[in-house]
């Protein structure tokens, strides 16, 4: 597939103090071009019974959002406001126009699904040695419904949302005889119908914790990072895309003069034992005389990092 390209700077939604991305193209682009992978927190339709593969939206750490903004790749949009004004006060004309667009899409979807279903049953019949169009005994199965039924294995009544239509005889519809009922669609992003909003100039840079210098430092060296709470660190650090690589470091940031318990070093070292990871502790050296203005993301940014390994084994 051709590489997705996105126009920069792209918008980041700010909702209730969190930074989210809803456009799948932006998600893929940010990952590929800027080594920003975020955390997928949404449910993938029809795969809602597992927590291993999650979908849109992508939640960005404030560090990630800030880095993108600092470098000019993205800008922040106050999404709650734009939705309030955009949808709750939408004019009648806009509404009807959009509904028409959705209706058209819905019909197209219904049509293409029907075609695919017919193709599939055609193939199945061919395999069985029978020629001809779909017979009346074949159930009308859409691709989506097929996915749905396969997705639900549980005894949960709630989840058997999309019942397979019963196999009773249904009259044959020829393609043009009766208008298909359109499907309904829940879009992923709000553009359309809203226009892509410009950045709000009064929005300041995202607030970041004290570990930001370490984050920026590691990012500038090509590492990918995800939140590392479960592992006992601020960031799990990958040498490449976490889809394909194991993490190398479990990184914790600290202030240069911050006191910490030596026992913590032991803990960190032990953490990586046996799992081929090293514990990393780092921060910005604020003891140097030159003042640092702006971001920490250049080389020579004064951040030091130390890795710790347990020698006991």
């Amino acid at each position: 597939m051709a590489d997705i390209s996105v126009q920069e700077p792209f918008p980041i939604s700010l909702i209730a103090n969190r930074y989210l991305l809803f456009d799948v193209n932006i998600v893929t682009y940010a990952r590929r071009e800027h080594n920003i992978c975020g955390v997928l927190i949404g449910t993938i339709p029809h795969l809602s019974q597992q927590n291993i593969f999650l979908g849109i939206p992508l939640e960005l750490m404030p560090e990630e959002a800030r880095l993108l903004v600092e470098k000019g790749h993205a800008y922040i949009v106050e999404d709650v406001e734009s939705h309030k004004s955009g949808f709750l006060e939408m004019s009648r004309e806009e509404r009807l126009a959009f509904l028409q667009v959705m209706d058209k899409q819905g019909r197209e979807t219904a049509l293409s699904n029907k075609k695919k279903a017919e193709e599939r049953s055609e193939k199945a019949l061919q395999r069985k040695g029978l020629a001809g169009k779909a017979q009346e005994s074949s159930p009308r199965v859409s691709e989506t419904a097929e996915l749905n039924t396969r997705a639900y294995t549980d005894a949960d009544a709630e989840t058997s949302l999309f019942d397979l239509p019963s196999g009773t005889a249904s009259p044959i519809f020829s393609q043009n005889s009766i208008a298909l009922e359109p499907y309904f669609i829940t879009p992923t992003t709000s553009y359309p119908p809203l226009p892509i909003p410009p950045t709000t100039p009064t929005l300041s840079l995202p607030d970041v914790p004290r570990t930001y210098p370490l984050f920026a430092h590691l990012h500038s060296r090509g590492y990918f990072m995800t939140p590392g709470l479960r592992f006992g660190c601020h960031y799990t650090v990958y040498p490449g895309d976490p889809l394909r690589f194991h993490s190398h470091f479990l990184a914790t940031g600290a202030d240069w003069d911050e006191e910490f318990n030596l026992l913590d070093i032991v803990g960190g070292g032990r953490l990586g034992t046996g799992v081929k990871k090293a514990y990393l502790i780092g921060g910005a050296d604020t003891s140097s005389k030159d003042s640092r203005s702006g971001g920490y993301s250049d080389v020579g940014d004064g951040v030091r990092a130390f890795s710790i390994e347990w020698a006991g084994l």
Partner: protein
Amino acid sequence: MASAIYSAEVPSLVTDPGTNRAVPTENATESQRAPRPKKPNYGQIHSRPLPLETYPLPAFIPHNPLSIFRIVYVVFSQLFRPPSSHPSVCYKGYFSHETQSVHVTDCKTIRALWEKGFFGKGNLSRSEPRWLDQEMRKRGLLAQETSEEVTRKRREERRRFKIERARKEREAIEQQLREEGKISHPAPIDETETLDNAQPQEIRQQLSNGNINDRIEENGRIKYGRTPALPEKTPIKTTQPLKLDTRHSVEAAGIELDEEHLQLNPEEVLFLAYGLGVLEVSDQGIPIPTSSLFKLFCRHSSCQSPETQSIQPDDSFLLKYVVYHHFRSLGWVVRPGVKFAVDYLLYNKGPVFSHAEFAVMIIPSYNHTYWSESLERKVKIQQKEKRDWWWLHRINRVQTQVHKSLVLVYVEIPPPLHDDGAISELDVGNILKRYNVREFALRRWVANRNRD
């Protein structure tokens, strides 16, 4: 008692934890294939949970009249000559300013303290004082391996295994690169990876075992860890119940002194002295009374402690001792937990029987209104009692990796007795009673597994 011959655990050549049987070595002193020595009877060696003796009455068997006579006899004889719970001569230890711990050098005392409750640590061993055995083994006089040696072998195995695996991976990558028609020079990264792994291992190896023993060869005596003020180490007594050949071997080896001593940390010392009354600590020959001992340890508890006389209620030694005493008094064997990044490990019977099930981490709690009376105090306690979630996950994850359960122990800190924040040093027991301990057991919860 049994300091000498036993069988250690030898790992098989894969990385499984070892089976518990010793293999006779290629030692020259064994002319014939000796029968496999039995594992020492830990149940018997460690039959006393504390270094005190108890005298239970003989069992009362209702249908056997003799049992009554037995009981009566024992009661009366004990009436006239009551046996004592305590050793006839108090155990002695010496406070070392350098190490801020108490050293015990008498062999019998060392054995008693280790066997009856697992107190202390050999300063040249990982836990039980094993230096002498290790030395003798080194000189080929002892057939079985100590656990340190077992570990060293295992580490060596693992290191070789890792290098081999890295080499194979590297080759696979090179192969792939060659197939794709890229240049045939291996990527530089791969080289350094194995080299880096190799070098630090070498250094670590030396530090852990090699160096010390080498120095013995040179000098015959280590200055390591000794202060001039300490009395001479007791020479290895031949009256010690060692097996015959070992005794001769020790002399033959030319080892005059057991270079190792038992090191007791402050909590253990206070428990043995204040709690059980079996230990007497001296400083440069002068015995230290218990209350002064208490003060001494409080003063030394943090490296930045000033020379002030006052002891703060949240003194870190005090907190540690309160928790130590608490678990010891419930019957647990409490050992330091540094190796697992926690304060203490709790053992059911002792480290020779099973691994520690619980790992204890102490958190001070400043709930009393005194601590929030002024802003200054509030700020100070905030700093001391605050723990972040990453810290918690870190130690919890470490414990999970080694199959232990994390127990957070909150210690409720009382307000100071006097206005100046000092603690009266005369009443140790009542000071301890003002604290309150509350334990919480933590466990990671996984959503899917608990469904059914």
